[in-house]
């Protein structure tokens, strides 16, 4: 079931990307796509590799800050800051992954968490570069120059959304390919039984670090485009609470399908917006939702769909039998 590509699901996803900005405000729709990239990348580690990374916000933040710095201070073609953001995310992931990989279970979680906190303090202290508590401001959205086409301005909500949608599609396809590749199978095998995978002759730790780098690179890229969304890179985006949010997106969507985290990101962004309208202390409600999901819906929302599908199938079979 894991990773099997469902054509209907892919069509549904495409339809979702098109419909999203029609029913939600532009910013919210764009943010959902960005966090969908982040959540799918997190699922590469949490779901497929069984590596319980609680530090995804460090890759996101590092990518966002490095791209944001270039976007705020230099006039470069768009591709460069995005590339630098992705590389920065991948670099941090390589360092964190290599240092944490020798531990397993709870210690692994604690370590990724502790490093996340270190990068947060780093961003907090390097005020001159990152803007500290106020966030990094003055970030621009450079126009895109393609041959034979007029200049495309990203200051239009529609154009920016289309760019993010294209990046989302490319990232999703890459990650899907990674999971289906022989390399992906090694990582999945190592999750299920690390010792056996190693004894067959695979270098498990190297494969896992590589997976960290892939996840970190894509998360860094997502951070880079996030810095352009609101023209600011807020310090909250590198805080460990954001790592917690990312883990929550993956789990509420469901880890058992590549589409689960996408759904999870959409639900999270929508829920956060909804709850904050209700009450200034919306985090209390959010915490309660987190607890409720863990206690009652461990398969995530995608599990609900599956339950409904099995129920319908059974009913259809019963009806057919009755005839």
């Amino acid at each position, binding site marked *: 079931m894991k990773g099997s590509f469902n054509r209907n699901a892919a069509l549904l996803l495409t339809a979702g990307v098109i419909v999203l900005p029609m029913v939600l405000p532009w910013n919210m729709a764009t943010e959902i796509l960005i966090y969908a990239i982040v959540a799918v990348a997190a699922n590469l580690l*949490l779901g497929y590799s069984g590596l*319980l990374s*609680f530090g995804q916000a460090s890759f996101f933040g590092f990518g966002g800050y490095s791209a944001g710095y270039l976007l705020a201070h230099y006039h470069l073609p768009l591709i460069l800051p995005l590339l630098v953001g992705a590389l920065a995310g991948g670099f941090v992931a390589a360092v964190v992954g290599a*240092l944490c990989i*020798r*531990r397993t*279970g*709870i*210690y692994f*979680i*604690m*370590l990724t*968490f*502790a*490093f996340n*906190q*270190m990068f947060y*303090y*780093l961003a*907090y*202290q390097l005020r001159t570069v990152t803007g500290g508590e106020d966030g990094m401001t003055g970030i621009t959205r450079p126009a895109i120059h393609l041959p034979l086409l007029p200049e495309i301005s990203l200051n239009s909500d529609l154009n920016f959304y289309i760019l993010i949608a294209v990046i989302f599609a490319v990232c999703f396809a890459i990650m899907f390919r990674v999971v289906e590749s022989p390399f992906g199978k090694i990582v999945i095998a190592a999750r299920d039984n690390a010792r056996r995978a190693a004894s067959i002759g695979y270098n498990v730790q190297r494969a896992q670090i590589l997976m960290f780098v892939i996840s970190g690179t894509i998360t860094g890229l997502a951070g880079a485009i996030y810095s352009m969304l609101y023209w600011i890179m807020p310090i909250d985006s590198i805080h*460990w*609470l954001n790592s*917690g949010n990312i*883990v*929550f997106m993956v*789990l509420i969507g469901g880890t058992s399908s590549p589409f689960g985290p996408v759904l999870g990101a959409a639900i999270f962004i929508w829920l956060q917006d909804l709850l904050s309208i209700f009450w200034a*202390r919306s*985090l*209390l409600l*959010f*915490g*309660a*939702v*987190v*607890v409720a*999901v*863990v*206690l009652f819906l*461990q398969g995530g929302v995608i599990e609900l769909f599956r339950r409904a599908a099995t129920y319908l199938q059974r009913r259809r079979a019963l009806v057919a039998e009755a005839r």
Partner: protein
Amino acid sequence: MNSSLILAQLLNGIAIGMLYALLAFGLSIIKGLLNIPNFAHGALFACGAYILYSVVQGTGSFWLGILAAALAVGLLGMFIERVAVRRVYGSAYLFQLLLLFGVALMLQEVIIIIWGGVGKSVSPPAYLVGAFNLGVTIYPKYLLFTTLASAVIISGIWLIIEKTRYGAIIRAGIEKKEMVSALGINVDLLFTCAFGLGAGLAAMAGALAVPLVGVTPSMGLDMLAISFVVVVLGGLGSLYGAILAGLIIGVIQSLAALWFPAASTVVIYVVMALILAVRPQGLLGER
């Protein structure tokens, strides 16, 4: 660098390190017995601090405040274990950490609802205000009190764990839960009590920290990261490694504030990375 200043920071670091040790000892007990990542540990620390604040405001008694913090948060921990944590023992770590992450968010928001979002401060009891003059440097009385109180509490728990029947059950539970349960011991109750004990230790650390750092709703967030660093450094499966690591981290943090004041928050993580690169199993880790 002035040597009296270094000595002052060293003493300061020992006091803070003892608080870290107390906090991480609680986390270590929960990790050892229940094998769950307690992401609510920082929030329980903050709860302890706020309860002390309220009791001191209401009754003026600092001692009563510490006692009330330990008892109330201990009970709160037992309640959390009973209604929520218990139900995810069979689940993956990911669900356990998310559950406690949710609990931590709720606790932090409840604190803001009850006590407001603005930080507050409490001064130590009158007989602990002031400082000893050691000749080369002055030593604030409250720092000495924090160090001694933490040491007494840790020693007390150590005695219970190493020398009493209940402690034997706890140690056996860490070693092999199934066997303990087969011997007719109520493991469910043991787990509830262990979570309560861990929460109570966090609360006492929080209460003792109040005269030093005051109370703010987000105080638990920073402490959570530090307690994780301390437990990881302490070592795999080591109950007491956390105490040694706590002291080391406290001292390093205080001394770093002398030479690199801007980086003192980052330094402990760098130290953690360096130690783990050399000794992946932690200071007192077995493997």
